[in-house]
């Protein structure tokens, strides 16, 4: 017992050394590597890692700093988010990137805020992430925008009048996007039926039956990759005839894989379409193929996920902010962020007053059922 107490006391005194080497700047990567969003989180992290590989140093105020990534797994779990965030903060990160999934982003937000560490959201599209937060920025578009794009596309291009929406209970991203989709779609004159499913559901057959029973003409499920693949496979075996519509989360090679060889039409909106920047695409693919571990994290092939691109752009944004701040002090970086602009892979990025990137276009893609690859459909804008 005495030994134990001694051990505990000794450990407590072992406060992590905060002083670090002179010429290192740390960037936190606040992403899920496990849990329901693990797959997406890993791809997003890949983008950041690739950017770090391409740009391992940054010159701040005349000194060359080595950029070190502090990767913390938030487990797609709100309860783990604060400690993962604290991990990044205690490592001395000047700025953090993340997270895939709006819920976790919100859950970690306050911890970053209290420590004065700015965060750049990469693909968390829920408006609440940045609303009212001076420390949270974001390089992607927002759900009200994405929801409207999807509603317009479904109503005008697909010509459907009834939509069935399915989202995970308790997932801010799913529920938020469905909500904005519903608003826009109903404003256009369509009918929306929305249902939630409990977390960890595996059997979606009854929900697919529901959509048919309601006479829906499109099946909108902006869910995580894990659920999306299951839904598509079950849709295929049940012979679902209506198209499946999704948000940026479905832009994933596993989803494409699932739809390969089936008759399920999958249409999504996303941030980036492979082929838009050849130099980036080739570089990224070469890097993936050179690292078996990275290739596994990307889902086993070298298809480029839009979230990886956002990870890359977020990293570049962070470097730009560090440069314009002229110091590694996190508060100064936060002050510099609103005025920082870059030309990213996904387009020009500039923040508005809430800290959201000003975006006017989203890419619409669909899966080619024969090749199992994403195909560009249109670039959709909303005024």
């Amino acid at each position, binding site marked *: 017992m005495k030994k134990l107490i001694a051990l505990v006391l000794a450990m407590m005194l072992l406060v992590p050394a905060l002083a670090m080497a002179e010429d290192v700047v740390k960037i936190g990567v606040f992403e899920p590597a496990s849990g329901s969003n*693990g797959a997406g989180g890993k791809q997003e992290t890949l983008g950041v890692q690739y950017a770090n590989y391409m740009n391992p140093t940054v010159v701040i105020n005349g000194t060359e700093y080595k950029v070190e990534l502090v990767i913390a797994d938030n487990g797609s779990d709100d309860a783990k988010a604060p400690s993962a965030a604290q991990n990044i903060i205690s490592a001395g990160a000047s700025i953090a990137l993340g997270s895939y999934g709006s819920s976790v982003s919100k859950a970690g937000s306050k911890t970053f805020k209290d420590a004065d560490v700015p965060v750049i959201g990469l693909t968390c599209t829920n408006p609440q992430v940045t609303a009212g937060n001076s420390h949270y920025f974001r390089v992607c578009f927002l759900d009200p925008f994405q929801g409207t794009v999807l509603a317009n596309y479904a109503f005008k291009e697909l010509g459907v009048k009834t939509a069935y929406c399915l989202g995970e209970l308790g997932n801010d991203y799913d529920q938020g996007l469905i909500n904005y989709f519903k608003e826009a779609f109903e404003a256009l004159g369509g009918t929306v039926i929305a249902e939630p499913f409990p977390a960890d559901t595996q059997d979606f057959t009854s929900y697919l039956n529901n959509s048919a029973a*309601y006479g829906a003409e499109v099946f909108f499920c902006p869910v995580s990759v894990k659920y999306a693949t299951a839904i598509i496979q079950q849709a295929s075996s049940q012979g679902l005839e209506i198209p499946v519509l999704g948000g940026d989360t479905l832009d994933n090679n596993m989803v494409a894989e699932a739809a390969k060889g089936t008759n399920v039409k999958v249409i999504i909106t996303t941030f980036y379409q492979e082929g838009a920047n050849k130099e980036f695409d080739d570089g990224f693919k070469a890097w993936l193929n050179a690292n078996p571990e990275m290739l596994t994290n990307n889902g086993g092939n070298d298809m480029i996920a839009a979230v990886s691109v956002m990870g890359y752009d977020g990293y570049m944004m962070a470097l730009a902010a560090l440069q314009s701040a002229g110091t590694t002090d996190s508060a100064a970086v936060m002050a510099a962020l609103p005025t920082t602009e870059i030309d990213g892979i996904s387009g020009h990025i500039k923040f508005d007053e809430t800290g959201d990137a000003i975006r006017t276009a989203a890419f619409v893609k669909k899966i080619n059922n024969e090749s199992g690859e994403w195909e560009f459909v249109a670039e959709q804008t909303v005024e």
Partner: protein
Amino acid sequence: MWDTIFPYLLSGISVGGQYALIAIGYTMVYGILRLINFAHGDVFMVSAIIMVYIMASGLPMWICIPLVLLITVAIGFLIERAAYKPLRSAPRMSVMISAIGVSYTLQNLVLYITGGLNKQYPTIPWISDTMQIGAAKTKIVTVVTPFLVILLVVALVLLINRTKIGMAMRAVSKDFETSQLMGIKINNVISATFIIGSFLAGVGSILFFTNYPTVIQTSGAMPGLKAFVAAVFGGIGSIPGAVIGAFIIGIMENIIKGLDVILFKLGVIQAPLGLATFSDAFTFALLIVILVVKPSGLFGEKVTDKV
């Protein structure tokens, strides 16, 4: 109306059959050790993960399936030897905690091996094919499941009623100590129980994940709990009870998911109420009702404590 309800019934019967195969493992172990084997659902999940990796190795199907079942059985056997046998004389709470610990360990182990990513269950020929029944389209496995379950249950009941090991099992579940005094090798009987339970969970796993082909470390938890509820519902210790309980729960659960639609079609409600939220909770509500009204379940025997 029938056309509306039929697809839900079909899903319910299929998933019910898969729960039944897990529930038998629960009910047999409980009957003998009076232990809720919390890890049983995870054995079911681990079996699926093993299938994923073995199929990926490129072995032919006719080797893979028996191999997976064999490994699943071995895991069930090892869990009993490693985590439950040392606690044979310990209070029941300790054994239950050990079971929870095993469940936790298996899940974390799978998390580590898969890196937290969901795995795609391999396609097994024929049963993965789609077929048309009436208005509904479904995989062949959906239809095969109930028949396979009945076949396995008949075989199991024969085993328990006609063989020596079956007789030993019945004796042990009636009275643990006395049967030990009568020279029954208690450890062998318990191992046999775990082997049978794991085997059925392995078969259930093939059927379940062929239908719902995404495997992740938490995949076993819910089906496991529901199967346990089914076992309690049918009367723990009773194999036909567990099977009937499992079918009832599977069907009810899917009806709940479609209840909004059914009510909508009947004109009872104008907009969905979001009742699907309760599809899991309903199972547990059913459990509590049955425990309060008839704690011995549909087919269980009442036990009185001796003072």
